[in-house]
């Protein structure tokens, strides 16, 4: 088992003919993801050349792609100006899960897109996220496949490379993963920590969860409360940004301490108050997970 994506994931790539879209489509296909369709308006009828001589049909629109291929998931690699439109189109096409990789999508566009997706009961991951990978089953997004391995740990994170750091250490120490999810660093994200924790709790193959947060907002605090209220599985946490100054955006649009709200201190305290053991350094995560599973 895994969460959100697995062997049944049938993926459409929105923006498959773009620079990023085509590169990552090949990567996903090489990993074994079932990429069943691509969408690029105006290029319907053409074919995308994947690795090993495989091809993927291209459609003008999501509804056509879904009707023709029975896709259930999409991933979005289109420029910011068109990204929220692509999410709306995906949410309207009958699929149930949309992964938005694009960085720099206007926040007010996302407010509307999230409302639209909620109206239709469609799960959105991102935007501005690395996607997710269920080792041995499916990869959707840009996470490097070589650092993951199959095993009992669920990983959820707001960050990209920091996740790689954590996952790499897990894998190097023989701790494989059920699913690694990057929820993204934007202020308005579709799938949050709680959504992932709930899914990991329900996934019989996940034995423990690593949750990697950062400064800004209160998602980690609410997730911590959720752990107390609804989780039986151990959770190990890490928070980046203890040295970040207030009021400055630290790369991610969502990584900003507003006044005294959203600091690493309050998040770490919320973790500790709710029984989540907190790694002081990324290097400590493996030890804490081992202790939790012992």
């Amino acid at each position, binding site marked *: 088992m895994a969460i959100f994506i697995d062997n049944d994931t049938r993926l459409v790539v929105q923006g498959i003919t773009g620079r990023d879209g085509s*590169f*990552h489509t090949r*990567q996903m296909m090489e990993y074994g993801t079932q990429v069943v369709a691509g969408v690029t308006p105006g290029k319907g009828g053409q074919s995308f050349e994947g690795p090993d001589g495989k091809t993927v049909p291209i459609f003008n629109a999501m509804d056509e792609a879904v009707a023709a291929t029975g896709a259930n998931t999409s991933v979005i690699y289109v420029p*910011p*100006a068109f990204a929220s439109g692509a999410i709306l189109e995906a949410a309207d096409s009958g699929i149930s899960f949309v992964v938005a990789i694009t960085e*720099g*999508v*206007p*926040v*007010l566009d996302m*407010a*509307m897109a*999230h*409302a639209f997706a909620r109206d239709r009961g469609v799960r959105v991951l991102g935007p501005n996220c690395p996607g997710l990978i269920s080792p041995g089953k499916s990869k959707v997004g*840009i*996470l*490097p496949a*070589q*650092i993951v391995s199959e095993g009992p740990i669920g990983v959820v994170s*707001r*960050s*990209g*490379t*920091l996740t*790689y*750091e954590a996952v*790499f250490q897990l894998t190097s120490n023989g701790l494989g993963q059920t699913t690694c999810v990057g929820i993204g*660093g934007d*202020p*308005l994200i579709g799938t949050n920590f709680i959504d992932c924790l709930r899914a990991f709790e329900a996934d019989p193959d996940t034995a423990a969860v690593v949750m*990697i947060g*950062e*400064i800004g*907002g*209160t*998602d980690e605090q*609410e997730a911590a409360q959720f752990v107390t209220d609804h989780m039986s599985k151990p959770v190990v946490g890490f928070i*980046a*940004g*203890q*040295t*970040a*100054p207030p*009021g*400055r*955006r*630290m*790369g*991610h*649009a*969502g*990584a900003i301490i507003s*006044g*005294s*709200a959203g600091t*690493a201190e309050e998040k770490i305290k919320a973790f500790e108050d709710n029984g989540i053991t907190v790694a*002081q*350094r*990324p*290097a400590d995560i493996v030890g804490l997970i081992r202790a939790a599973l012992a």
Partner: protein
Amino acid sequence: MDIHEYQAKERFRAAGIPVPPGEIATTPDEAYAIASKYGGMVVVKAQVHAGGRGKAGGVKLAKDATEAREHAGNILGMEIKGLTVEKVLVTPAEDIQTEAYVGVLVDRNNQAATFMVSAEGGVDIEAVAAETPHLIRKLVVDPRYGILPHQGLWLANYLYDDPGLIKQAAKIITQLYHAFIDAGASMAEINPLVTTPSGEVKAIDAKMSIDDSELFRRPDVAAMRDSSGEPASEIKAREANLSYVKLDGNVGCCVNGAGLAMATMDLVKYYGGEPANFLDIGGSSNPDKVVAALEIITSDPKVKSILFNIFGGITRCDDVANGIVEATKRIDIKPPIVIRLTGTNEEVALEILKNAGFDAYTSMDAVVEKAVALAGAN
């Protein structure tokens, strides 16, 4: 992107919000001329992208034009939170009866624009929200409907009892929402919203932050960028498309990814050092970006060592290594550089770096410890 008070007021005025007149002065004499034109008492206000202007002495009441010139002379050139004041707004002093707070920002939890209003104006709303939340009325605006007439009234009802004031405030709240949306803002604030003895409701101060992701499609808003007073290093970083924040330490950091960059800073602190900056070079291994990053880091005289922490995923480590070597050929760098590279093609990369004479590591802890030690020694 923050915009100045006078720019926010222009947008508010265009949306119909009653805002007192005001003009910008960059010299004391200009301030004198503007104050003379208005006659009577004026306020001279520093235009700078930093909060707490008032406490820092950046806002002064002047009884006449001569005093306005004097205040402008003191305020212009002043440093507020590391930013130099290069402009002041000169505006007639208003006769104020009450002060309230009205603000709207994008709320993460509700995934929507959210108003906060308080009859306690002129205050730090975050402090009020934290300490006396019962003094704030909040309204989440459903993006599908925008702000509705009864919602504006509901907020205004919380501020005033007088029907005339309520009506004016409800209108201002609706106009503020439109100004917020039309600018692609992440925050817009009137603090204080005042009433005058003659029964008018007016925006005396104005603040607005723009979502950087909106700028590509709003040239009128993007044109309001004013980098005056900003550190040169941050301007350069923005132009090079780097995420950079200057800090006060001496260990320069150059990392790929925002979360890893923060974790690296934290680890510097963990090992007893102080990070000199946050810097995320993004996913690119373009040598030009590495050059720009190194130029920015080394422009800070406090920097005593520089550490690279690169986790190669999609990014290939050998590309980054070549970028670093190339960059250090183009510019002369004094502080020692230590590099951690891991992930895709790391062996090739470490070879390239060792050949070029760099200390290269595969563990994040090792490189941070080393960088802290070098900074302490230098």
